[in-house]
């Protein structure tokens, strides 16, 4: 399981936790998130996230 960080606002998407509020189940891999998904805090696109080492 990886974590991905928004390069604009620092929001972290944790694959293990998913985003249940947005209908993304815990364990959802980054590549399985729809391409038109946006950062819930600042609205940048999925392309503008980088994987972070944990």
């Amino acid at each position, binding site marked *: 399981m990886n974590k991905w960080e928004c390069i604009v606002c620092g929001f972290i998407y944790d694959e293990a936790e998913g985003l249940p509020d947005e209908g993304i189940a815990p364990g959802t891999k980054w590549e399985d998130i729809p391409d038109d998904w946006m950062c819930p805090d*600042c*609205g940048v696109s999925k392309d*503008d996230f980088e994987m972070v080492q944990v």
Partner: protein
Amino acid sequence: MTEEKNIVIIGSGMAGYTLLREIRKIDKAAKLTLICADNGDFYSKPMLSNALDKQKDPDALITTRADQMVETLDFELINKTFVTAIDSTNQCIHSDRKTWHYQSLVLATGARPIRLPIMGDGSQDMISINHLDHYRHFFQKLAGVESIAIIGPGLIGCEFANDLASQGKKVSVIGPDPWPISNQLPQEVGAYLQQKLEALDIRFYIRNSVQSIIKDHKAYNLILQDGQRLDVDLVLSAVGLQANLDLAVGTELMTHRGFVTDDMLRCSNEHIYALGDCAEVKGRHMPYILPIMQGARALAKTLCGEPTKVTYPPMPVAIKTPACPTVVLPPHDRNTAAWQITHSENGVKALCYENGHLAGFALAGDSVSEKQTLVREIPPLL
């Protein structure tokens, strides 16, 4: 043969660079030039106000260096250059040394911190932070500093207060506002945030103001309007931003709180556009990240030949105060807003209804988890 597109962007902040990225996603061939006063490194401005807690020194905030930006996005970077004038008749812009021609010009000049006229020989030392270089200066000053006064209990002031308190600094926040972030939060939510920040030993002097700042060796004596005196090592000014509109001088460009644009982000000249903190889009000046993202996507299409109106979905603003996570989506008409308040064990929720429909909300503490559900109920702004 179609004429090659020649787009010039002034400003290397979030607006300028986001637009570059969005244009490159749809047009690999357009000739793009970005002119900026700093050196053009890409960093995230919203992170400046919570970088200390994240253990980020100024250089760690640079996510992509200027040369890497140029390599990935294929544009001409003219850095360390001040554009001094726009000649809209001849479609060119000037610096003190050079002239550039444009087919389309995008103003992404951002905003600059407002400085209050405060008496005393210490007021010129107040630090305002709205650029990485300001942060660098602040970061250097911070060594050895124990106590800090923040003028302005708004969003940025509260974020810095939380960030500095998390580093063990003694923080005082001063301003005439009736409660923190009173321009966006209803009283109950502002008071809740204040209480959580006070639990970190942050002291609030609200409904108050700084009359004078006197230098005293390496410290500063602040005299407040009600006569109280504060002695601190550093003074931070966070009383708001004003759009950087210098380039409007000598042009026909209309300005108000920003360069006045229509819903295509077009200024009062058909070849000039404005994006971000320097723009007032159909009467709305929204100096936040989400409007930049929405604007950049629409403007990229427009500039690449597909005229596209900017759309504003409901855009909540997250307030990065870890002691009390807060998110707000102010209703359009804040003055007449009637809030319904619900307190819970570890949070507070304020909802605002207009004509029976949800028009805005403010959530603090545990209540922030309801953001996504509430956003879906709110109609788009534009």
